[in-house]
């Protein structure tokens, strides 16, 4: 029997992000203050840079660069065991925020991923939830 993966704890603050994933859209918050206008992630009740509570959910480009990475061999949740090992990555999105995710491709030990360009791709996470993963950009 396959174990159920952990599901996001959806609430009024983060719902647009998670439902965006199900439409294969990477929706990120952008501050609505003209003096600020910065993008932010993870989902918040307001802009962490200027405190504005006006913001909009906008589709991000889905492009970014890997800042750092690790190979997961012992996941926090046992439901991921059949997929081991895999690359867990920190991606700096073109819009600015840092997003944690995974490479869709398998793990290759010789590859230093730092600085590599990636683009978003959506995968099935479990019943009713899709998730953004990333692919290495083809050269």
């Amino acid at each position, binding site marked *: 029997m396959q174990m159920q993966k952990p599901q996001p704890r959806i609430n009024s603050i983060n719902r647009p992000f998670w439902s965006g994933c199900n439409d294969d859209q990477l929706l990120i918050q952008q501050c609505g203050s003209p003096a600020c206008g910065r993008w932010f992630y993870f989902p918040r009740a307001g802009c962490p840079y200027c405190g504005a509570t006006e913001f909009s959910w906008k589709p991000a480009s889905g492009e970014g660069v890997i800042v750092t990475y690790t190979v997961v*061999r012992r996941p*926090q949740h046992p439901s991921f065991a059949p997929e081991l090992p895999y690359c867990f990555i920190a991606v700096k999105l073109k819009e600015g925020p840092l997003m*944690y995710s995974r490479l869709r491709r398998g793990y290759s030990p010789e590859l230093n991923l730092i600085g590599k360009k990636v683009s978003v791709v959506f995968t099935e996470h479990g019943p009713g939830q899709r998730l953004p993963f990333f692919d290495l950009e083809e050269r």
Partner: protein
Amino acid sequence: MSNDFDNVFIVGAGQTTYEKKTEKPVIRLIWEATRMALDDAGLAWNEVDGLGVTCFTLGPDNSVTLAEHMGFQCKFLYQGMYGGASCIIGMHHAARAIQAGDADVIVIVAADVFDVGSHMSMNRNPGQQDYMGIWGYGAANGVFALQTRLYMERYGAVPEDFGRLCLSFRENARLNPNALLRQPLTMDDYLNARQIADPLRLYDCVLPCSGADAIVMVSRKVADRLSGPRSRLAAAGEIHNYPSDDIYALSAGWETFTPRMWDKAGASPADMDFVQLYDDYPVMSFIQLEGMGFAERGTAAELFKNNDCTVRGSFPVNTGGGQLSAGQCGASGGMIGVYEAVTQLHGHAGDRQIPDCRKGVVSGYGAVSYGRGLSASACVLERV
């Protein structure tokens, strides 16, 4: 220089044996460490009038129901919510309270009943659980593998650099009867250990375990009728969510408050007889040394190359073996360095005693959320 806490003294310390498994409930461990610290000080149970506790597994109890359970009538309470940074912050609050005359005998205690399984399944904040965990992250090991990889890339550190730190701590643990890991560790053992979360190997990761640490802080009025050794909090500091806009600054902000801490303590890194770091991972130990002014950014590895960092050496670090070799009792990971510092300053460190030990620094770090620990703390302690 006048000290902010010239009417506050640390007069006792207690630590249970660290165990991989225990049948004891966590409140029993808290009780035992508290009893040991009070006995060490020569104080009676019913003299306690303040309590500061940090414990991940205390719920549904909290600081006030713990006071009720233990029979302490309290004029001061603190409950640490900042993981391994909490205990030093609690001591700082307690020192202010005693100096202000609010309380006279405050116990600062931390404990947890942990093993690898319960550590993996603990309840987590949104930053970790919802924005890392859903993708299958590797818990704390995975979070600090990301930090370690970047540190290596940015500063050219190699596995042997982290290994030297682990070997040195292990040498100290071999002299500590309360430490869990006391067998010798060689560089070959370190480098050939299994990968946990690349680039972290087995000996880069702490062993979750069970145990408790406590100290007692008292007013001058109380200290003056005690006959044992005493020490004091010369200065302390804390910072949280630093820098707020960069998870990968490879800093949690020690450099923002330690210049003021050194100034208030009337001391500098060169004056320290020991350093007790929050060694959840070697990389964070390096970052603490750099942030507190013991090394330039990216160069802490040199300290372990150029010094003997054991208790026998010129630059003793984590003199009881630290969490990496003694074990990490959950939130008590933030207290093990304090316990060890007080034990050294009071001359009670047995086989691992640093001769003529007068001053030392302890750092704390914790509250792991989205990609990093959010809370940093440190204090200077001195024998008086």
